[in-house]
């Protein structure tokens, strides 16, 4: 379908400086692909027919080809001979590293932080800290005090649990919209 519309666009005749191929995004691909010799031969032939009548596109193609050749001057450097050795040394160090650094590294692998595995860990830690700070929550108290405390704790717990569920739902939705990995 896209190829058909490309063909139609190229078969039309345009006046100098009026060629829409020089302004739309789709045609930008055609012009660049042709100039950089990446356009399929059939499409290239059609574009060449179009260029015979379109000085704007002809001028663009010529200057883009000249630029393409000029860019070759930016040569790369050869890779250090000890690149692999250094990489394996880092991997080795990582294997010998602490358990928490390994967890952090796995969470941050791929360029983004993956929070999902941290949620249950954080929940357990929070619960432990809460129990440590408020030992009365688990101790046996008098009936009146117990009822009052349990009531407020339950309300807090339900509120926290609802907030956690909300947060997880939002994260799932966010992940569904933008996949973690391409």
């Amino acid at each position, binding site marked *: 379908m896209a190829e058909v519309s490309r063909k139609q666009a190229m078969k039309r005749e345009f006046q100098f400086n009026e060629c829409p191929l020089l302004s739309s995004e789709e045609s930008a691909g055609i012009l660049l692909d042709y100039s950089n010799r990446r356009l399929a031969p059939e499409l290239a032939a059609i574009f060449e027919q179009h260029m015979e009548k379109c000085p704007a596109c002809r001028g663009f193609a010529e200057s883009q080809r000249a630029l393409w050749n000029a860019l070759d*001057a930016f040569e790369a*450097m*050869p890779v250090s001979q000890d*690149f692999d050795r250094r990489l394996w040394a880092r991997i080795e160090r990582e294997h010998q590293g602490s358990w928490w650094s390994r967890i952090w590294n796995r969470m941050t692998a791929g360029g983004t932080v993956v929070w999902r595995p941290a949620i249950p860990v954080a929940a357990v830690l929070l619960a432990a800290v809460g129990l440590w700070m408020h030992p009365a929550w688990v101790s046996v108290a008098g009936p009146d005090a117990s009822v009052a405390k349990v009531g407020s704790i339950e309300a807090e717990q339900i509120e926290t649990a609802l907030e956690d569920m909300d947060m997880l739902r939002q994260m799932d939705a966010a992940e569904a919209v933008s996949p973690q990995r*391409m």
Partner: protein
Amino acid sequence: MSLPSAQPSSETGVHEDVTAVASLERDAELMLRVREGCSASFRILLERHRAPVIHFLYRMVQNQAIAEELAQDVFLRVYRSRSTYEPTAKFTTWLFRIATHLALNRLRDGKHEKGQQSLDTEVADGIARQVPDKVPSVEQRMVREVRFEEVRKAIEALPEKQRAAVVMHKYQEMEYTQIAGALSCSESAVKSLLFRAYETLRSRLAHLA
């Protein structure tokens, strides 16, 4: 997963593994084998993509030492992700997405040092820029050096995303879909980025054509 040594020749059995997995053409298949614990597959992936990744990063940050440091981070992240890897997209797209992410972060942090290496300057570990085998004359070398500097500066002056798109398109010969994947944008956005970037470059480098 057993760790391979830095010297492949000294490692018993690695060569057999390498021969066995060398026939695998698709990177994703190699990565799946890495997930299963095959270090030889990771070695092949490294061999296959080391230079393209470093060259991409060099043209992005314009400093060889920093480019290699970032490339190490890229491959380390790939290695760390092995257990959770799923071949949902082309391996190179994923690889260059990581590389682009690190390069853009580096540029935004402003930590990169501008490449000031001339043609005959050697980097720390004694390597020089790739030049043809035929020894050029002094004049040819000077012309090449001037052209190199002008193109380098013109690319450096591009906005970060345009620079990444041009480097991937021109030097890595990546398809629009792959560039879009690496830059986390649409294919038409990539075409638009490239069109604007080449327009700028054509005007800045018109005298070189």
